[in-house]
């Protein structure tokens, strides 16, 4: 469990960083919090020839709401979200979600953007960004920034729409007004473990009826997915326990979970039902 040899660079600004990434192409990797990359290197499952450590770059740690968007910089750490980063349902949701990510020391270093770049199927931030319809902002040497919608970002286990030479510089999430309510629930074997299943939901109510609904599921293997059928069952409904049950059933029926040493697919399906119901209950559908 010792990593293979690699070269290490610690650029001081973004241009240098993307220049290095351009130069090394497939061989180069961004090192952010290192909480996923370093363990995978120790197992030699990842063996980048070049590490571009972005931690000394000024101005990447931003976390600010502007023009209806929460902008999350590449060095915003998980721990920053533990108290609400923005008023209203979004900040509250993120503060609730972050408590399920790993343990405090890991949260001090791991980054939001690193989670999206890593794209673990059980990443809380990935499912949350998907549910909220976030946008990912990428930079590469000599090019304009490129934006990718969350629904186009996740391609499979640990694979995303990122291109060689690109760096994820920011994730944007829509700031939610008071007409929105959100919920999050997950199930993991131990405190801080990656979840066996999770559900995130965001709902917009108008005069007592659900007008917009989004539910994302994670932890099922592959990539986080939108539970489109489940969300559809909620539209036009009055929030109620029956509505929540119907949506949870739909989420369970249409998901495609995998089996591993922790749980068979059948069990994960049960969890999806339970977690969807809990997330919806938090959002007031109960």
């Amino acid at each position, binding site marked *: 469990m010792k990593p*293979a040899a690699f070269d290490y660079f610690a650029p001081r600004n973004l241009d240098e960083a993307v220049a290095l990434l351009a130069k090394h192409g497939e061989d180069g990797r961004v090192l952010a919090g290192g909480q996923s990359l370093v363990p995978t290197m120790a197992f030699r499952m990842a063996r980048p020839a070049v590490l571009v450590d972005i931690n000394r770059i000024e101005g990447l740690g931003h976390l600010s709401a502007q023009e209806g968007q929460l902008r999350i910089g590449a060095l915003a750490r998980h721990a920053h979200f533990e108290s609400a980063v923005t008023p209203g349902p979004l900040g509250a949701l993120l503060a609730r979600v972050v408590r399920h990510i790993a343990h405090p020391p890991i949260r001090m270093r791991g980054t939001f953007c690193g989670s999206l770049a890593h794209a673990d199927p059980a990443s809380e931030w990935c499912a949350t960004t998907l549910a909220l319809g976030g946008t990912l902002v990428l930079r590469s040497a000599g090019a304009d920034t490129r934006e990718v919608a969350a629904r186009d970002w996740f391609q499979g286990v640990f694979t995303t729409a990122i291109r060689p030479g690109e760096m994820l510089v920011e994730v944007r999430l829509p700031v939610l007004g008071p007409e929105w309510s959100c919920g999050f629930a997950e*199930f993991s*074997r*131990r405190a801080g*473990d990656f979840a066996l299943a999770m559900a995130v939901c965001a709902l917009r109510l108008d005069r007592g009826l659900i007008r917009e609904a989004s539910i994302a599921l994670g932890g099922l293997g592959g990539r986080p997915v939108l539970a489109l059928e489940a969300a559809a069952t909620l539209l036009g409904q009055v929030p109620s326990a029956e509505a929540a049950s119907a949506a949870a059933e739909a989420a369970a029926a249409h998901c495609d979970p995998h089996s591993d040493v922790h749980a068979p697919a*059948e*069990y994960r399906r049960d969890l999806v039902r339970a977690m969807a119901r809990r997330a919806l209950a938090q959002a007031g559908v109960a």
Partner: protein
Amino acid sequence: MNWVGRRLPRTEDPPLLRGEGRYVPDIALGARAVRFLRSPVASGRIVSLRAPAGLPPGALFVTAADMPEARGIRPALRRFEYRAVEQPILPRERVHFMGQPIALIAAESAELAEDLLEQVELEIEAEDPVVGLEAALAPGAPAVHALAPNNVIVEGAIRPDGFADAMAGAVHVVEFAFRSRRQNATPLEGRGGVAEYDRATGRLRLAASCQMPHMLRSGICEVLGLPEADLQVVAPDVGGGFGQKMSLFPEYPALVWLARRYRGRFAWIEDRYENLIASAHSRDQKHILRAGFNAQGQMVALEADILADIGAFSCYPTTCAVEPLMALAEYPGPYKIPSYSVRARGVLTHSCPAAPYRGVSRPVITFGIERLMDRAAAAIGLDPVEIRRRNLHDVFPAKSPTGFTLDEGSYIEALDEAARHLDIPAFREAQAEARRGGRLLGLGLAVFNERTGYGTPAFAARSMEIVPGYEVVDIAMTPTGEVEARIGASPHGQGLRTTLAQIIADRLGIDPLAVRIIHGDTDRTPYGWGTFASRSLVVGGGACQIAADRLAAKLRRGAARLLQCGEEEVVLRDGLAVTGAGASIPLREVARIVHQRSELLADEVGFNLAESGSYDPPGTFSNACHGCIVEVERETGAVRILRYLVVEDAGRIINPMIADGQVRGGVAQGIANALLEEIHYAPDGNCLSATLADYIPPTCAEIPEIEIHHLETISSATLTGAKGLGEGGTIGAPAALCNAISDALAPFGVDIAEFPATPPRILALIRGRRAVWEAA
């Protein structure tokens, strides 16, 4: 002043807390790093094995061909039905489990060694592996070793006369078949060693993270054909062992061989991946029980069929028989069982070898008999407490059906005490109320006794070729008055330096801080058996007491002479020898005179204050009752422990703080066993639990507050009155928790027959079922 019985802070702790402990990796600095090439397959034939092209200068590549003189590890049992399978240090021809060491690389750094490992040219012709008990015993199954054609490496049976009649006379017959899944002891520090050659003396020194330094020396010397005097084995600070560090693993002789052959210093520091796949596993068992009860709910006959998957090789020195044959011998536990019939088999598979882990088979048999008791209670219509009361031994000494003498214990008292603390009537009301709200609460009990501190006769009865048991302690007072005690036991976190000092301090009337316990070094301690089987405090403590009493007699003799009174008038206390008349002399003064003014005392005392004590007790049974209350979450199968308590009787408690720590740590590992930890193998023999993301020990968040109540039955079977308690915590927890979970699930008509009782397993039991109140 009595030091025994006090919550004395551990003298071990300050350096550990300051980060000043010295573990093998601390000692290994500067040594050449050794990494092992491990088999990627469970079973196969080595077709070719070649060094990396371009091995850099200073790097070494070693295979079996390089060490023709090394013998394999040959644990032996003097029983005709045991197949003496031998484990090679490095295999020549075949591999038998994924992770088995095949070759090694030594290089400047571990990183470089791992780079080079990737370049070794290894070709293995994989063969169909035998994975799991069922596959190993299936008709026509391939043999893991030709020596054991049907894959049974050891078998034992007891078929008493009259058993069939006893069973036929039963009014109720209760059956219980269950599965215990494979575990890894997971010490915080993995295995590891540094071996070096001393050019000046020609001796070798191995510092290893081990539990039995003398045994390790004997084992390595046997394999390599070395005189024991040429090898010093040291156990420095050891970061947990739990049994896993008892055995002789191929890696250690390989290290010593390297140091000797290349006259250098070589270190192997195991990583977590190696520890999970290739150290030692345990408790992969399947039992089928059948018990007959009379109309009063008393068990009249018990029949057990025990299978233990022992992996690919037998462990040294205990042999792999330790799991199946302990289960065979100890199943009846604390219960009066007039007729007991049993068969136990150890089964070979292509998997990591099994070795003792804290409690060995006792967590499994306690699970079996305690779940059986709950099943029987339900079948007969008795309360779980009542059925146990009717079956527990209450007259001591008692005889077990397998011939053990059970010394004085408090089996019924411990049960009653646990029941009282749990307030079972109040719980039943709360449970009924919770059920009305759809919530599932359950209460579980586990009563057991635990054979501890047993000496040579007990081990000799196991027919082991190497018979451990006794302990020798060499004690001496220095000219400045401190006491040095050299022990053969080898603590690795249990606080023996503190507790043994407490025992010695009381016998000599001195402060425990004046007692230095010297351990873990074959050059500086008498031959002894290290630490396992909840023995060190009982056996080592008894030897300390004997040695200290002899030293006390010498001191009194010397003091009497100096104080000019009769020996019987002298009492040792507060560091003084005191006479009834009030005259006194500091012991350190006596010590100075013995060593430096020997003309004054040589006639009475001789020329030193050195004594030796040895102790070899028959063994003693501690006992306990664990009780817990859990909530099972119906939607997810998650188990929350609402309350956990232990009523423990380990005789005289030398240091209650340390005793509580042993119980708590043990319960934590028992909770792990009950709910979380499981080593999985894929059908192709690939170990799937190779990281701590896949094999999941509890964190502090999963361990509840553990209430501990002590009973102190002073048994005549041990010198100090102390009984062992190192393993009890681990033994009771799976049974207590799974009984509680089963109680919670009772409305669904299901119970737990496989552990760990994971959320997916629990949900699988109740999926699609209705609770009685829903059916109604």
